[in-house]
């Protein structure tokens, strides 16, 4: 059933225990993500964006509240989730293809099936012909594409991305945004993207979730109703600028720049 809520957070908080006592990282969060939706989270550094992603991934336990994936509480690493990290985290001793197949190896997927899927993903990501190369022989953008392939190999319904293009140069980043839009529209995954870039968030997302400074809380959620497929030219359109201004206003509201 489309538009069903795939991820549901109710009163989700995170408190870290440190030497100086408890530090509240996230205030109670309530949000839900529909199946097939592309949602971005933008916020200042240290607002708990990555913590939120790790909790959805099941890599960090929630302190309080309930966080559910497909109706079941998330209580550990999920089978139905693929993660793309800020750095590509490709293993230097494996070829690109073997890096992607690592997902299948650990999850004990049937070999032939995994190989076919890997090749299909690689051609979709424009990596055909690079199967036998090592990660360091690839550009930064290609490395990150390979890590996206790895995250999609076991055909998860949710793709979690933690500032995946933060380390790329501006030009490559725009190309990657286009690529990601294409991959998303072809694969119909539910995507949760953490980013620092307001244009990137607006360009890619159905909805943009704006978070406030630490302890993080949801400041606003905007529906981005720009037509798809979106082109880079649209970044200069008035509609795009209105969204960008709205989102940006949150970050300057406490400062001297009053919008």
């Amino acid at each position, binding site marked *: 059933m489309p538009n069903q809520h795939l991820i549901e957070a109710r009163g989700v908080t995170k408190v870290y225990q440190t030497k100086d006592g408890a530090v509240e990282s996230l205030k109670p969060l309530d949000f839900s993500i529909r199946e097939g939706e592309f949602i971005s989270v933008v916020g200042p550094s240290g607002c708990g964006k990555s913590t939120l992603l790790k909790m959805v991934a099941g890599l960090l336990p929630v302190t309080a509240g309930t966080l559910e994936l497909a109706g079941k509480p998330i209580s550990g690493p999920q089978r139905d989730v693929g*993660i793309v990290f800020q750095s590509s985290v490709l*293993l230097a001793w494996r070829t690109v293809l073997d890096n992607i197949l690592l997902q299948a190896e*650990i999850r004990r997927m049937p070999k032939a099936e995994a190989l076919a899927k890997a090749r299909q993903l690689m051609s979709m990501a424009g990596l055909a012909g690079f199967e036998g190369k*090592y990660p360091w022989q690839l550009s930064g953008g290609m490395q990150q594409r390979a890590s996206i392939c790895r995250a999609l190999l076991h055909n998860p319904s949710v793709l979690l991305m933690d500032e995946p293009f933060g380390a790329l140069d501006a030009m490559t980043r725009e190309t990657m945004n286009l690529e990601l839009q294409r991959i998303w529209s072809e694969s119909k995954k539910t995507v949760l993207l953490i980013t620092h870039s307001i244009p990137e968030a607006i360009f890619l997302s159905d909805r943009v979730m704006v978070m406030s400074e630490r302890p993080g809380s949801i400041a606003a959620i905007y529906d981005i109703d720009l037509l798809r497929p979106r082109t880079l030219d649209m970044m200069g359109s008035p509609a795009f600028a209105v969204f960008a201004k709205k989102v940006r206003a949150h970050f300057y509201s406490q400062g001297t720049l009053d919008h």
Partner: protein
Amino acid sequence: MLRRLLLLPALRPFLLIILLLVLWDLAIRIFKIPAYLIPRPEQVVQQLFAEWPRLLTESWKTTQATLGGFALTILIGIPLAMVIAYSKLVESYVYPLLVFSQSIPKVAIAPLFVVWFGFGIFPKIISAFLLGFFPVVVSTVMGFKSVEPDMIDLARSMGASRLQTFFKFSLPQALPAIFSGLKVSITLAVVGAVVGEFVGSNSGIGYVLQVANGNFDLPLMFAALVVLSTIGVLLFVAIDLIERLMIPWHASQRQVF
């Protein structure tokens, strides 16, 4: 053609050695250094050939002690380092003690090993082990600690077991650091074996050195040193070769591709 041959990278250290030998010989001639202070290179070479069978047998004994100590280094040093890297508790107990133990001069306690373990090969192995194992522990700890947290998260997200995480992610990532420790360790292990042979032995290159020293047989002493250095170099090259085979992907080896 000859010029190209002379400039071969593999030949360069040998060219330097020849140059140093010439300088050595010239210095003795020019400054008239008496033979009881420094022997002439040709005397050393003569002695090297004359004593060759003996030097070969003795160097095999030293090599055995070295390899024994090195094996202990791998068997004890690497697992110990892994425990230190993974457990803060163990690290806080053991690491300071290890550093402390490194400040103890091995030459001073080597005679004790003879008292404890007799005159066989065992005290030499222990001596080689004690000298060689610290660099391996230090670099292995560093290797395992420098595995990126994201990589561990990646492994966990895939549902990898602890063993899978170790063998497929952490260990390969730590291998370059482990090897750099092993390369330092093997040359120190040679020194350790000789220290062991110095204090209680009737065999090995260390013993030859002792005897040559006692007889003022400087050419033999220098010949023994040449043999000893050669052992060190050959063992180092062997480790280097294994490293190339095991981690061809590492940045330091990439010209191989």
